[in-house]
């Protein structure tokens, strides 16, 4: 039993190490750069019906890299995470429909502008709102960190509207269509693309965008000068040879169906499920993988914290209490960002999103586990320990042979509960760009704008998995009590 557990632990640590250390494998001759990108920003960045990341940004980047002689590993994630990853040196550059602003210039160095854009504002298709002054007292939905959001903030007091934020575009559009908010501000091409794709919105200023500006590729200020120079070089080449125009036209003139699949496939649950079968499946696999590894490591860590919590040494007990206090008190999302973006920014060492995700799960779920494990041990009658000690057993032997087995039995329901929470919590890791089930849902919705159906499918998948997990746990519990 003990040996088996040890073997599992060692195997997992090895696995953990391999994934944790896996870096971009640079090809021999050309430099390879890790570039982050927005995962949900059509037509600049999105997934096509075959789950490939495409869009103006993606195609331009590829063409530029080829022209200038470098290779890229693209990491799609949420816009803010994409920007932050570069600021914290987790990645070399970011191409995410980023507007060049003075604020951003303080943190990033930008390439030559690669696209002219401006801010559009849109309402629901049949909205009565016609001018900005109609927004008085109403709510405007915005995507966090975008130029559209920045512009809306700047005129918010002038026009007297309120603001609500979301981290992905589709949720913003849904919010407007559903009437929770009345309008949104975003980059003109982005809004036009999603409307072409069937989103029931209407651009109010198609002829005269606000705050016309430029999109740029960015690196961290003062770093990767060579990459930036190469990007500019490549951009000049593809502008000259016509590749640039071809790419822009491909996205802005083509019918949306070219990228998203036929309307028929996108308008029924079954069609969506069929079209995105492999995406859902790989998302589910990633969710299960995170859950299983997370549960095992968090349980081991929690057990250790729990055992430390009933140690005879005061300092060991205090250590356990402190660790539990800190990580139970910290919102999981904050912890994930802190590990993925905060720590590397401070220390300069990169950590993969997957490792940061697992570490987040282990620290957070492990703290909850530690608390109920300690509680479980403490609820074992003190007489059990006294009896064991009176026979001459040491404290640790008494713990192992008498207290821990009895405590564990009391904890089984708490463990099952924690397993289910862990499964659900993996969805939060979509925020640092891990492509698990929830993130998969977000990507599909960006492409096909079928929020209701896609989220219904995702919810069903979670329910099925949770049901299976519950059955399995109950089976284990029965066997333990037999």
């Amino acid at each position, binding site marked *: 039993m003990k040996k088996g557990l040890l073997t599992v632990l060692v195997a997992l640590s090895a696995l953990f190490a391999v994934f944790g250390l896996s870096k971009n494998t640079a090809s021999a001759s050309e430099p390879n750069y890790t570039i982050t990108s927005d995962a949900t920003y059509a037509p600049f960045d999105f997934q096509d019906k075959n789950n490939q990341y495409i869009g103006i940004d993606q195609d331009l980047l590829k063409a530029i890299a080829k022209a200038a002689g470098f290779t890229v590993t693209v990491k799609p994630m949420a816009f803010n995470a994409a920007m932050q990853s570069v600021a914290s040196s987790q990645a070399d550059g970011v191409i995410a429909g980023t507007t060049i602003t003075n604020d951003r210039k303080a943190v990033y160095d930008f390439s030559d502008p690669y696209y002219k854009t401006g801010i559009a504002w849109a309402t629901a298709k049949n909205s009565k709102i016609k001018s900005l002054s109609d927004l008085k007292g109403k709510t405007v939905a915005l995507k966090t960190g975008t130029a559209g959001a920045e512009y809306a903030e700047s005129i918010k007091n002038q026009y007297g509207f309120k603001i609500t934020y979301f981290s992905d575009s589709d949720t913003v559009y849904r919010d407007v269509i559903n009437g929770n908010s009345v309008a949104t501000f975003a980059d003109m091409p982005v809004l036009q693309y999603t409307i072409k794709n069937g989103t029931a919105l209407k651009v109010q200023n198609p002829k005269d965008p606000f705050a016309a500006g430029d999109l740029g590729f960015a690196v961290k200020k003062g770093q990767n000068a060579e990459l930036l120079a190469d990007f500019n070089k490549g951009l000049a080449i593809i502008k000259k040879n016509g590749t640039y125009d071809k790419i822009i036209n491909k996205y802005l003139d083509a019918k949306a169906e070219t990228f998203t699949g036929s309307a028929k496939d996108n308008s029924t649950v079954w069609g969506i499920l069929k079209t995105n079968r492999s995406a859902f499946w790989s998302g589910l696999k990633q969710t299960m993988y995170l859950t299983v590894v997370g549960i095992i490591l968090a349980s081991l860590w929690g057990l250790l914290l729990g055992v430390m919590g009933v140690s005879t040494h005061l300092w060991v007990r205090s250590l356990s209490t402190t660790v539990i206090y800190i990580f139970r008190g910290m919102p999981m999302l904050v912890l994930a960002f802190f590990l993925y973006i905060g720590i590397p920014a401070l220390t300069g060492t990169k950590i993969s999103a997957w490792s940061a995700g697992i570490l987040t799960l282990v620290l957070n779920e492990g703290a909850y586990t530690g608390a109920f494990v300690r509680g479980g041990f403490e609820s074992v009658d003190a007489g059990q320990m006294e009896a064991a000690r009176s026979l*001459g*057993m040491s404290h640790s032997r008494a713990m192992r042979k008498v207290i821990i087995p009895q405590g564990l039995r009391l904890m089984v329901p708490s463990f099952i509960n924690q397993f289910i929470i862990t499964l659900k919590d993996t969805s939060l890791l979509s925020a640092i760009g891990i492509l698990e089930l929830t993130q998969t849902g977000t990507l599909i919705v960006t492409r096909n704008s079928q929020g209701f159906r896609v989220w219904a499918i995702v919810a069903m998948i979670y329910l099925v998995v949770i049901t299976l997990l519950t059955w399995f746990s109950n089976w284990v519990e029965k066997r333990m009590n037999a």
Partner: protein
Amino acid sequence: MSEEKKVKVHVDKVNKSYGDNHVLRDISLDVMDNEVVVMIGPSGSGKSTFLRMLNLLEKPDSGVIDVDGHDILDPKTNINKVRENIGMVFQNFNLFNNYTVLENITLAPVQLGKMTKAEAEEKAKELLETVGLPDKANVSVNSLSGGQKQRVAIARALAMNPDIMLFDEPTSALDPEMVGDVLEVMKRLAKTGMTMVIVTHEMGFAKQVANRVVFFESGKIQESGTPEQIFTAPKNERLQTFLSKVMHA
């Protein structure tokens, strides 16, 4: 006491306080080899605290405790080794809930390397025979009655081959009809020459088995002597009051 006897337990001037509550005050007591000492006294007088000090389940604030020639308050003493020779029986049995009756008895001897598993099981079966529960070896402890549990607890303590046994009110948690069986086992144990220190409210049993009776009151030994001295000619006034209460209860 004409023949020279070995001192098994030597206690000198121990004190113990819980906060302001001075529970044991300068207690000294020697227990001889093969002796049965019964401790009586009102509840809260410090009997349990004193008994639990003999195997260091409680630590005194000051004083000397020697068991089998080991100074158990010396940090260099391996208390686990000393405890192997001191069996303890608790008021609430404290049988290990995660083991069967047999496993309860064999756990410590096997774990502590005193016996092989086979030897321990052999011994456990003998002990179950002696305490009158030969057919309960493989049942879960939760299926036993209180009296049966306490007899298993005695067998568990005896499995380590201790040469001192401590009993803290072993029959107080039992239904009256169960008390006799447990006392019977203890009487037989006393006859084998086991050194025993017993806290009990069973005065009849004390009269029968004790070589010496010790009366505790307010954290002090107020009087000690043979059962006849204590029960028929008590000198201490508080002892007289105590006896008049328990005898008429």
